[in-house]
């Protein structure tokens, strides 16, 4: 090469036509901030663990919310009329009268009268079997199932029942139970959301410390980049890219493992459900089913964790540089 080589006016090969002598396997654009360091791997692991835990919280909260909606739907579909036996009253006549009033209500799809024997059987779990309950004033029940098409006028039904059978009939539409269930479910979902937020804050703090550490250990790199003419924004972007990459890796691993855990737990729950105990558990706690929304929220948490990592590292680097 001659001295002409460095003159300002020298001609270069046109863009797009590679210099034939340029090695084809030349590594050209490695990240400016070293990536595969122990600190980087540790940070990715921390983000993965935090994302995994946040994913579990979100999935569980989503599962509870979905089951609560299902329970509420099931419970709200049924209402009960209770007929208390009173001195000098014909309970069977009262029951028949209440059933007639209920059947006349347009929104009621089905009416089922519990016979005396059935009502007594309901008490068996508490009083034991083989007792003669004929002397006890056991209340009688009429279960009503609401129709889907037409909404029932429960208020009207209640007032008609009380009018026809004062002090004897009462209507229980499970409002109190529904309220409690809804409060419990909302509290659980609220705790889940709170935990997810805490985990994301923890991710942000972990990234802040990691970025500061990385800046300190890469002080030399930052200095050299400054001397060769990189501006602060360029340097911040280089660090942000590196940390976003780590966040993405950690977030993907954490979210992936969380999803895998839910799928496995779902399969195990399905296997266990075949037994009678499994059916009872399912009746009590609902089906183990995270659903698409649950999986989507786990993935979203992974993405948010990566974004938090990128943004927090950028802010930390900018502060460090100024």
């Amino acid at each position, binding site marked *: *090469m001659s*001295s002409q*080589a*460095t*003159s*300002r006016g020298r001609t*270069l*090969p046109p*863009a*797009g036509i*590679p*210099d034939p*002598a*340029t*090695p084809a*396997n*030349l*590594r*050209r*654009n*490695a990240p*400016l901030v*070293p990536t595969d360091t122990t600190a980087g791997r540790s940070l990715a692991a921390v983000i993965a663990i935090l994302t995994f835990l946040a994913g579990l919280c979100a999935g569980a909260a989503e599962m509870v919310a979905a089951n609560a909606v299902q329970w509420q739907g099931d419970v709200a579909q049924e209402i009960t009329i209770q007929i208390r036996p009173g001195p000098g009253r014909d309970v069977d006549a009262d029951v028949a009268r209440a059933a007639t009033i209920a059947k006349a209500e347009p929104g009621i799809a089905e009416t089922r009268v519990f016979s005396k024997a059935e009502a007594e059987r309901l008490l068996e779990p508490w009083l034991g079997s083989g007792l003669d309950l004929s002397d006890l004033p056991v209340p009688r029940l009429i279960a009503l199932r609401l129709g889907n098409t037409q909404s029932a006028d429960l208020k009207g039904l209640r007032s008609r029942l009380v009018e026809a059978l004062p002090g004897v009939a009462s209507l229980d539409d499970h409002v109190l139970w529904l309220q409690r269930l809804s409060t419990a479910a909302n509290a659980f979902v609220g705790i889940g959301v709170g935990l997810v937020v805490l985990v994301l804050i923890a991710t942000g703090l972990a990234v802040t410390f990691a970025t500061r550490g990385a800046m300190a250990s890469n002080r*030399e*790199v930052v*200095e*050299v*980049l*400054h*001397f*060769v*003419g*990189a*501006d*602060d924004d*360029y340097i911040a972007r280089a660090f942000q890219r590196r940390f976003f990459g780590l966040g993405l890796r950690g977030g993907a691993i954490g979210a992936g493992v969380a999803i895998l855990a839910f799928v496995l737990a779902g399969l195990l729950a399905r296997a266990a459900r075949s037994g009678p105990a499994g059916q009872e558990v399912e009746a009590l706690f609902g089906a183990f089913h995270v659903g698409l929304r649950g999986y989507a929220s786990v993935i979203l948490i992974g993405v948010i964790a990566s974004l938090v990592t990128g943004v927090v590292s950028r802010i930390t680097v900018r502060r460090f540089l100024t």
Partner: protein
Amino acid sequence: MKSLLPGAERPVVQFENVGMRYGLGPEVLSDVSFRIAPRSFQFLTGPSGAGKTTLLRLILLSARPTRGLVSIFGEEVSSISAKALTGLRRRMGVVFQDFRLLDHLTTYENVALPLRVQGRAETSYRAEVVELLRWVGLGERMHALPPLLSGGEKQRAAIARALIARPDLLLADEPTGNVDPGLGRRLLRLFLELNKLGTSVIIATHDFGIMDAVDARRMVLGDGRLRIEE
């Protein structure tokens, strides 16, 4: 166009009564005044601890003077914006005594760094970088990471990195300190050639061998004061 009157052109670097101290310590530089003319070549010398590195840092804008005025490329730097500072640094090339190559990047990537940070596409400078690497004798070493390079190879890589963006001002801190005398003379010829092409060159050195080889202005630092031997 070269001016007919030397000194009539705007100096590349101008110091006026510059004083510099670190914290509350004694002044490392006192009342330093000088000008570096465009296309000039000079040595900066003096005993260890005389303030050579501090003076270079002031020119590189990595330190601010405690007092006095510093102008780089005609711009007074005391209240310079970050953007303008980057612009000025892009017109300078620097060879550090300890090279400061990035160990995780290949020789090629290190040399291409000043062009890369300008946001240029890699294809636009590839041939240029490969050409310069061959010129400084590192054509076969462009894949190597700096820890695998010899002292002389690192030196040449650092020089290539300083030259690649064709700076208007080249600063070199002990550029021949780690190489055998033969290579030292070759590097000196490289700097002289660069100077002929229009770059102002400041070489900080202890090496009288290379200073005696060139008839150039000597800026001698001693006890924080500057003496100029034309």
